[in-house]
Structure formats: C-alpha cells, structure tokens
C-alpha cells in the first residue's frame, strides 16, 4: 500500500516535469527518460576499474540513455590488467584504453580511484546507495601448486612476476634473481608465454616499451638462456593461443628446444582437429622440426606430460636449484582428457621457477555469495545468486580465462541482462537513489580521499613525461603515495 502511494507520488512528479518544459527539454537532451517512475534515472555502481568494469559501464551507458554509472577502483590508477597484466611488448592490446578513457569521460560516468570496496565501504552500503551493483573486481590471487618447496627463494608466481615488470605497486620489491641459466615456467597458458618471452627478448626491444626501468635493469643483467614451459597434459590440450607461440618462434637468436617424443602420434590426429587447434599444433610441430640453430644463443621449449611434485632446495636449504616433475600419461579423450602419473620422476636443474597455473578471485565481502571451489561469484548470466540488484562480470563471473574480447562480450552480456531486469521491474527503479553523493560523503567521514579521472590524467601526464625522456611511451609510477601526491597536486 505504501509502495503504491510512493509510485503514484513519483508519477505525479513526472507529470510536473512534463509541464516544466525547460526541465523536460533538459532531460530529453540526455536521450529522454524511458522509465517515468524514476526522475533521476537508474544509478549503477561498478566495482573494479579494469576491462570488465569499463566494458560493463560502456554498455550500460549506451543501452540506458538515463543511467548514471560510477566505477570504484582500489588503486589510484584505472584499467586493471590492461595496465598491469598485458605484456609491455603488446602495446596494440592496450589501445582499448582509448575506449575506456572515452567511457570514463562520458557525462554520465564517474571514476572513483583509491577506494577499497569491502574495506573503505561495504557492498551493503553500495547496494543501499545504488539501484544496482556490478562486481567486476577480477582475480587478484593466484592458484598455488601445493607442493613442498614452493616457498623457497627463486620461486615466484607468474602473477607477481608479471606485476613486477608491469609496475604493480605491490610487486615493486620482487627483484628476482636471474643469475641462473635455466628458468622453468609451470603452466602453458598465455601468461606463461608472456613471461618466457620477456625473459628471452633482447633488452633493446624491451627498452622501447612501457616496462619499468627497475625490471629492465634486472633483465639487462639476466643470465637466463633457456626457458622451459611445463604442462601436465599434451600438445593437443595446450592452453595458450597461437599468436603467443608464433612470437616465441620468431624471437631473435632463440631456437626451439622441444622433445620430439612429446609429439608422437600428433601428426595422425591433426586432420580431425578444428582449424584453430590444428594451426596451433602445426606451428608447434614446425618449431620441433626446425629445432635449434647453432647460432642461437638462447632457447625455449615446451615440456609436456609433466606435473611438478617438489621444488628441490640447494645446500643452503633456502634457495631453489631444481624441480622434480612426475611424468604423466593421458586418459580419456576430448575436453575430458586427464593427466595420470606413470610413477616415473624427472629432475630439472634450474634456479628460477615461475608458477603460472592460473589466477584466482577472492570473496570481497561476507554478504556476497562465493563459490570457493570455482573461485567465482555464483551467478546466472551475471545475476548474482540469491541477491537482487547484485550482478557480476569478467573474471569473478566466469573464472580467469580468455582473451580481452571474451571479457568484453561477457561484460556486454551482464550489462544487457541488467538493463532487461530494469525494464522488467526486477530491479526496482521506483525510488531515487543518492549514488556517489552518499558514498563519497561516507568515504570522507572515514578519511578516504578519492582519485577522480581528471586526477588520474595528471598521473598519466607525469608518467608520459618521464617515459619521454627515456624513449618509452611511459614510465609507470610504482608507489601509491607518489601517485596520490601527483593526483592531488
């Protein structure tokens, strides 16, 4: 009954707007108000300023001409893994930043950096201030190998290693020891190949990218000449994509060091494969055949059918000097192919071990459902299970896989579902929500100061300036306090 009165009251207020022609024109200029029960339009909060957050916001702004979208980000800088994950020698991929910047500068979109959702403000508080909340906070953790010796010096997660060369503030002290000749990477996805490529690329090629100066200095003194990329299954199950393999094949002064025995029976299986898998396999077979040239000073190679069982410590008991691998055979077929240990073991000598077996999302807030087994927020097409008005997109929605187009499509899907729910009345738009006004006031009382998009642009300008003097597109700031100082200057 109360609600009915409220809706009637709202309808009445819209009628008044109709008569106030100036106000009406003003609203029409924004594209017209489609749902007349809410005078101010839906307010949506996006948690996380990476690709999933920006693509969700982009689609929401487009599909609802009256929606107001606020993006909250923990760091003072936007773009998430496009800044901190995409390899420095893949500047083309970072072109998506141009579209994200347009979104952030949209008149109905705001970016609030330096806000740690879950700590500075709770999801409950956001849900009270907004008609809908979209979780797009990604996967900041990594899956651990759960083997003895994983904590020895010389063992890193790919997430931290990538964060180090890409300037993630929390990884700036990593300083890996690259004095060993052989490096072993566990996992065979695109991140594993990014790391392998960075370890083997000539420093002259890297110094023109936005790789950080401190990591460049360490890489310049690297003794790593051989990088082995280990996977538990076979060539037909490999997780990386062909572009990254081709880049390995094309590395200057670097040959392929593969085991032809890993490819037994593969040639016969080729003809039944779908085109993408077939081309990828053919490229690997070509690399096996060409092998290593006498002139090649460095080499890389896949090692298939092997699972890590233990990191071997040196005499000091603290430093990794090798890795023990269990040999596997395959059982089953198709997508269900499993690696089963044969009982045989093999030791590989190496002083640098990087585990690249996947990222992992964490729960953000105890009130939000979380599936610990799959490490995602349980959802149906982006609608968070049992929680009206709460949505998710990107890696928290479907797990940490896929290329940027995968995240783009799934974020667009979530935005479409949310707009459908608004139109179907599943998301209640009949009440006005205060949005950022309430949240920023709350943050102020808690001593949290935000970084707005124009303030990020100051950081951006400073980074570009520092990069210019070094002949690079940018030199990233590594310290959050320094970022804040420049943002608020």
């Amino acid at each position, binding site marked *: 009954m109360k609600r009915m009165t409220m809706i009637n009251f709202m309808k009445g207020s819209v009628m008044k707007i109709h008569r106030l022609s100036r106000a009406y024109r003003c609203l029409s200029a924004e594209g017209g108000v489609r749902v007349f029960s809410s005078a101010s339009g839906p307010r949506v909060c996006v948690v996380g300023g990476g690709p999933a957050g920006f693509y969700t916001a982009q689609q929401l702004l487009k599909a609802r001409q009256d929606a107001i979208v606020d993006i909250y980000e923990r760091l003072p800088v936007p773009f998430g893994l496009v800044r901190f994950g995409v390899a420095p020698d893949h500047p*083309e*991929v970072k*072109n998506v930043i141009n579209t994200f910047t347009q979104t952030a500068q949209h008149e109905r979109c705001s970016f609030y950096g330096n806000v740690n959702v879950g700590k500075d403000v709770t999801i409950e508080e956001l849900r009270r201030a907004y008609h809908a909340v979209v979780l797009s906070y990604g996967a900041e953790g990594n899956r651990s190998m759960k083997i003895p010796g994983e904590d020895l010096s010389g063992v890193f997660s790919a997430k931290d290693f990538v964060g180090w060369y890409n300037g993630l503030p929390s990884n700036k002290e990593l300083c890996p020891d690259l004095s060993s000749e052989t490096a072993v990477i566990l996992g065979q996805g695109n*991140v594993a190949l990014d790391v392998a490529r960075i370890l083997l690329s000539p420093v002259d090629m890297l110094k023109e990218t936005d790789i950080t100066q401190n990591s460049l200095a360490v890489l310049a003194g690297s003794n790593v000449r051989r990088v082995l990329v280990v996977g538990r299954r076979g060539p037909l199950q490999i997780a990386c994509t*062909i572009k990254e393999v081709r880049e390995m094949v094309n590395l200057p002064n670097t040959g392929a060091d593969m085991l032809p025995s890993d490819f037994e029976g593969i040639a016969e299986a080729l003809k039944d494969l779908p085109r993408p898998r077939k081309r990828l396999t053919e490229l690997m077979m070509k690399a096996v055949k060409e092998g290593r040239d006498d002139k090649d000073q460095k080499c890389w190679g896949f090692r298939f059918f092997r699972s890590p069982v233990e990191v071997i410590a040196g005499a000091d008991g603290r430093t990794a000097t090798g890795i023990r691998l269990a040999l596997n055979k395959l059982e089953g077929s198709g997508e269900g192919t499993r690696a089963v240990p044969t009982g045989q073991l093999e030791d590989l000598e190496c002083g640098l071990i990087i585990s690249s077996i996947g990222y992992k999302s964490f729960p953000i807030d105890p009130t939000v459902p979380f599936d610990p087994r799959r490490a995602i927020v349980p959802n149906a097409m982006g609608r968070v299970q049992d929680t009206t008005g709460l949505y998710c997109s990107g890696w928290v929605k479907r797990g940490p896989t896929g290329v940027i187009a995968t995240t783009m499509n799934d974020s667009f*899907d979530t935005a479409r579902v949310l707009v459908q729910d608004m139109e179907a009345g599943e998301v209640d738009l009949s009440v006005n929500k205060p949005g950022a006004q309430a949240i920023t006031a709350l943050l102020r009382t808690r001593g949290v100061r935000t970084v707005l998009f124009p303030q990020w642009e100051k950081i951006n300008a400073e980074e570009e300036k520092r990069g210019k003097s070094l002949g690079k597109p940018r030199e990233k700031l590594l310290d959050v306090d320094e970022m804040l100082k420049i943002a608020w200057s």
Partner: protein
Amino acid sequence: MSACILRVFLQRAAVMRKAAQQTFSQTRMFPQCVTEINTHSRGINTFTSSLRAEEKVAIHFLNRDGKRISVKASIGDSLLDVVVNHDLDIDGFGACEGTLACSTCHLIFEEAVYKKLGPVSDEEMDMLDLAYGLTDTSRLGCQVCLRKELDGMILRVPDVISDARVDSEKESSTAPPKV
C-alpha cells in the same frame, strides 16, 4: 587519398614497427591494402588519385540484431575505417584499433566475395582463430580494404552471444589466463 593512406598507415604503425623488429623474413604483417595502395599510386599522378578517392562503393552490413546497415564508403578505406567513420552501431567493433591484436572486427563474407579478397596473413589467421563463430569465409575488417570490385557486397556481423558458463567449463581448469 593521401589522408586515407595516412590513416591506414597510422593504424598499423605499431604492427609494422613490430614487424620491422622481427628478424625473421616470414613475418609479414603488411596488410595487403597498404601495399596495394602503394604500388597503385606510384603509377598515377596525384590529380587522378584524388579523383579516385572520391569513388565510392556500396556495402551492406547484416548486423547482429538482423538489421541491415547500408553505406557508401571510399575506395581504399578498410572495413574498420568504414565502421568508425560512419559511426555504425556494432558493439565492441575494433577494440585494438586495427593493430591485429584482437578479433572484434570479425566479419563473414559471401563465398564469391571472399575469394576476391586475396591471401590472408598468418597473423590475421592467428587472431581469427580466436573469433567467435569462425567460418571458412571469415576475415578481420581491419585487414580488408575497399576496392571497386567489392561494390555491393554483403557482410554478416557474427553473433557473439555465448554461453559463458559452458565456455568456462570447457576450458582447462588450470589454463592460465590472459586479458
């Protein structure tokens, strides 16, 4: 004409810089249209080439919603240029801005037209292999430039709606990710 060449060149500058760095001769990221325009303009004077730039061809896009979008576009422009310059409403098209680093400008051609387009580079095939709804007549819009013979062609924008749940279960649980 020169403006359009410049734009095509700028778009691919990053790709070409990279190609130049590669010591392996098999790497050829030179998009066919750039080389064609080069050889093409060498023989003719600027007056004719500026006239040629005025030549337009009709293209029809069948968008995801089933609607047909028809435009007149300049010869020499890539299909990505056409979508951008005409501000066509195709969601997420050209995310990497024509640098062969994504597959969001994937388009499906009629077989007869596809045959006229000429060979596809390995690098374009590599990105196409990641595209949703890949067909035997798929190309990346950023790598196809308009020519007179392509007048009246019909292009289908592939559907990208995917079942993310099935996708993630299909992928290996240990597959390391990449944005």
